[in-house]
């Protein structure tokens, strides 16, 4: 596997604070979040319960609720918080550089 690299995602203001966006890259899909204070975060894009994009869900404080069965994850840690999700999400470092969000994948 090649070394992880910082990958450009989007302008910071393309994602509202306390919201999430889908990001597809290199055959993979990610969910990119901004916390209520604006800090960016990134996780796998698909729910660990079924094949559903988390970007259609609801960000509340530091959780993302899946749009299909309302399972919840902490998007900062990837921890599964509420059934029917039982398996944690992978998380990826995210940062702001020159007004753009980048993630390390």
């Amino acid at each position: 596997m090649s070394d992880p690299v910082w990958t450009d995602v989007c302008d910071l203001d393309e994602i509202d604070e306390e919201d999430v966006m889908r990001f597809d890259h290199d055959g993979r899909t990610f969910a990119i979040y901004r916390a209520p204070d604006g800090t960016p975060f990134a996780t796998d894009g698909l729910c660990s319960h079924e094949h559903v994009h988390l970007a259609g869900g609801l960000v509340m404080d530091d959780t993302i609720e899946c749009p299909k069965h309302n399972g919840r994850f902490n998007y900062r840690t990837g921890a599964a918080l509420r059934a029917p999700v039982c398996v944690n999400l992978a998380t990826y470092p995210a940062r702001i550089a020159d007004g753009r969000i980048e993630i390390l994948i």
Partner: protein
Amino acid sequence: MTATTDPHIRDYSLTGTDTARAKATGLANAEWYHTDVPRKVMKDLMQRRDGPAIRDTAIWFAVLGLSAWGGIAFWGTWGAVPFWLIYGVMYGSACDSRWHECGHGTAFRTGWMNDVVYQIASFMVVRNPVTWRWSHARHHTDTIIVGRDPEIACMRPPNVFRLLMAYAGVIDMAESIRGIARQAGGTLTDGEKDYIPESERPKAILVARVHMAIYAATLALALATWSWIPLMLIGGPRIYGAWHMLMTGLIQHCGLAENVTDHRLNSRTVYMNPVSRWIYWNMNYHVEHHMFPMVPYHALPRLHEVLKHDLPAANPSIWDAYREAIPAVLRQAREPDYYIRKPLPATAQPYKMDTVNV
């Protein structure tokens, strides 16, 4: 309205021929149709609030308490009857919508409030809170997909006698208690094992034992005091007060399509009077709920306004929904492949018809 000529015998079990068929044809875990809604609008509709559910739960418990008081105070006289009628519906019907909405975690913003009301309502509606959480998740993944959905109320061909008897509440209560007793004994069916992960099964058995212990204590109290009152208060209302739950619940999907991936074809939105909507927590907006289960009950009327250009016309009343569903269900007794296909408005996207009735 549609029927095909070569009906196949349906197998509604979750481990049978239709299960294999649903998986093979891509009906299981399929992509479903969704009306396009701008992200900002949807985000606003999904917002959680504690206020409406705290208000409704306070009213619910107050009405339960007052009607129970009246039923006991006037016990043995005709004056007790209206109190028990109210108590019955508050216990045996309102529990269903509270179970449902709190199971989704959308009623309250605060998680523990959803969990507390979910546990209480699950007990009242005689559903194991663990097994039914998973069963309902499957109902949302594979809504009315034969062989996949464990919550299909109107199977085809229909057992009309059974559907009628459902209103008396006895059959459903007897089956629910039998199910909880079986789980308390440590046995889960193959169907339950199909949708409940292994790690959750011990919890399902534990909670079934707690429920059975409460029923046993209630029965013991009734025998010790030689009184019906404990049974009128606990368990009994699930029989004598379940009629409203069944009246509203049976029109969610009955008479509509099976094996489709467009909720506009298999779910029904019905305008209802405000009292029924309060008891039912707005689940009369059923197409809307299935399409966007993230939207809490108090925002469903707004969601309906956003979606209605893309939905078949709502039934204007409960009565109208029955006038539509009853002839269809009776016809399904003769023609199991028959279902109602409602016209869409000119503003709607066409139905997603790729997998209809395969």
